[in-house]
């Protein structure tokens, strides 16, 4: 018993000193996993960039199941990590509960608004970025039919779909949009086989450009599109390199920048809501050597024009989450 107590005491002291000595930032990745080549990987790249530039270290944690959320968050906050950054809307409820218990810790959440005094909420205007890639999809399509494959059926993903559909209609009012969601559970972020089958099903309906906003499932979509000889559009990270010459573009969401900035601000993280829109460089379409040949000069001009208009406020892209409806697409 006494031995046990000694051990426990020693462990507690260790934990305390560790907590006091380093106020490292921490990051929690959502269920898609740190290397989903998409959303979470972008966050990881931001953290790595910070570590490389400052020489600092950070704590990280990958969620394995839905049940771990609160526990994971509390554990990181208890170790003295500051700030704690988390990726994904699913942390919203949990953070709302946990944040008041750690008033001295700053939290940052990406993709969700949490109204607490010590929380920074970063949201992106995905509909604007999706609008741009939607225009490119419509212009690259020869059949006049384009596809959209979402991950889990949540308002956030519908926001992608809606902006995309508006962009498609802007470039080609007669275009047909085929939209599918992979599923309604978090497993929908990680089912590449189903993603591939959805892509094939959409191709049989005439789609020849498919936009995947589906985390790890999107890898299957891009793969199937490449196998079938049609074009695909990546999401969140620049995924053009996955199948050079067969991925039209990627709707990049600069999650990496947000994580990088949150880490840089450190314990003095500015709280409140930050909207990362097209103007702020939060979203964009990706151009590199891998898709240079696919994007014609006309496409580029048209998209850049639309981009300027959105930035100037001349084009308003509808935000699905504002009223849960979409004028360009029915779900």
């Amino acid at each position, binding site marked *: 018993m006494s031995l046990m107590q000694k051990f426990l005491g020693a462990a507690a002291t260790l934990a305390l000193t560790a907590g006091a000595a380093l106020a490292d930032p921490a990051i929690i990745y959502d269920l898609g*996993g*740190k*290397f*989903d080549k998409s959303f979470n*990987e972008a966050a990881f790249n931001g953290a790595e960039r910070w570590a490389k530039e400052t020489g600092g270290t950070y704590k990280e944690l990958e969620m394995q199941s839905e049940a771990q959320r609160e526990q994971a968050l509390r554990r990181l906050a208890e170790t003295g990590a500051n700030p704690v950054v988390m990726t994904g809307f699913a942390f919203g409820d949990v953070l709302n509960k946990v944040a008041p218990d750690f008033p001295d810790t700053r939290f940052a959440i990406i993709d969700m608004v949490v109204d607490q005094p010590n929380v920074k909420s970063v949201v992106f205007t995905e509909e604007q970025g999706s609008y741009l890639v939607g225009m490119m999809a419509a212009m690259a399509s020869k059949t006049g039919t384009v596809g959209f494959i979402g991950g889990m059926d949540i308002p956030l993903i519908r926001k992608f779909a809606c902006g995309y559909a508006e962009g498609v209609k802007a470039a080609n009012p007669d275009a047909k949009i*085929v939209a*599918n*969601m992979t*599923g*309604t559970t978090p*497993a929908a972020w*990680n*089912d*590449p*086989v*189903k993603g*591939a*089958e*959805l892509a*094939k*099903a959409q191709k*049989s*309906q005439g789609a020849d450009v498919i936009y995947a906003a589906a985390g*790890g499932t999107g*890898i*299957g979509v891009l*793969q199937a599109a490449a196998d079938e000889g049609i074009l695909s559009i990546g999401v969140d990270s620049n995924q053009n390199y*996955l199948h050079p010459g067969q991925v039209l573009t990627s709707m990049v969401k600069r999650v990496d920048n947000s994580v990088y900035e949150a880490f840089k601000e450190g314990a003095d993280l500015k709280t409140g809501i930050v909207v990362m829109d097209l103007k702020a460089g939060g979203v964009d379409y990706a151009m590199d050597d891998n898709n240079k040949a696919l994007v014609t000069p006309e496409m580029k001009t048209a998209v850049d024009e639309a981009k300027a208009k959105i930035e100037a406020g001349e084009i308003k892209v509808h935000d699905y989450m504002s009223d849960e409806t979409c004028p360009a697409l029915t779900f």
Partner: protein
Amino acid sequence: MDYATLLQILDSTMRLAAPLLLACLAGLYSERAGIFDIGLEGKMLMAAMCAGAVAALSGNVWIGLLAGIAGSMIFALIHGVASITFRGNQLISGVALNFVASGITVLVAQSLFRQGGRTPPLSGAERFNPIELPFAESVAKVPVVGPFYAEVLSGHGALVYVALLAVPLTWWVLYRTRFGLRLRAVGENPASVDTAGISVIRLRYTAVMITGVLCGIAGAYMATGLQAGFGKEMTAGRGYIALAALIFAKWRPWYALMSTMLFGFFQALALRPDVLKNTIGFDVPVPALDALPYILTVIALAGFVGRAIPPRAGGEPYVKER
């Protein structure tokens, strides 16, 4: 729904049903011998990882397939040792193996390739590419049957045909060979098999290893045929659907073919909600379609389509003398 759309859905059905069918037949051997196996999922996952990794390293999909089978057989062997030799609880052993597979696959893939628990994307000879069946081109012009042959039956990876051939083979082994008779007997009444002087232990091990081989093919097909590489948890519950199909099929090989095709068809139909809406006139929520295999299994278990009776000695470790 026009004929072309139906063909497309059936084509998708074939691809989706093949891993289910292999896993279902795998479970059939094991359960017919009296060893319940919840670990089909884990074995498939293990096989997918091994096949994806070795195909990427060796550049040859057939070596990848062998590695997948080997990985799955190791898990089958562990299940056998736990539940046959040590007479442990078969369900717990199976569940445990599922958990182990879920973790160890990512761990091994990560330490091998440093790509976050994925195996590198495969291409060319590292994958099972579609095979055109003979005369597919010329037969395609024959009305009705031609397109069916060309679209649905032709143009799949080699392992889809292996899965289809495994059905008559399994039927023949189970009902036309001495080994099959003994296998069925050992699942119903192991004591009588033992009395006849045949080793219960050896029979059951053989059955469990066959399960390993078939699960290995199923997993390898997922990583190297359907997809181009292994990803974390990529089997996404297909091992459990295969178990449901096995119950729905009442532990019989031809019924297994029908039930997995039916379940595959539901999965393919869930990919085309527009078709369903046009055919029956109203919107069916996709999750309802996803749940259909399980609902059907419950109906089967409730005895609405004839009673589904599992092998009588299933789940019971065999003790020679008390």
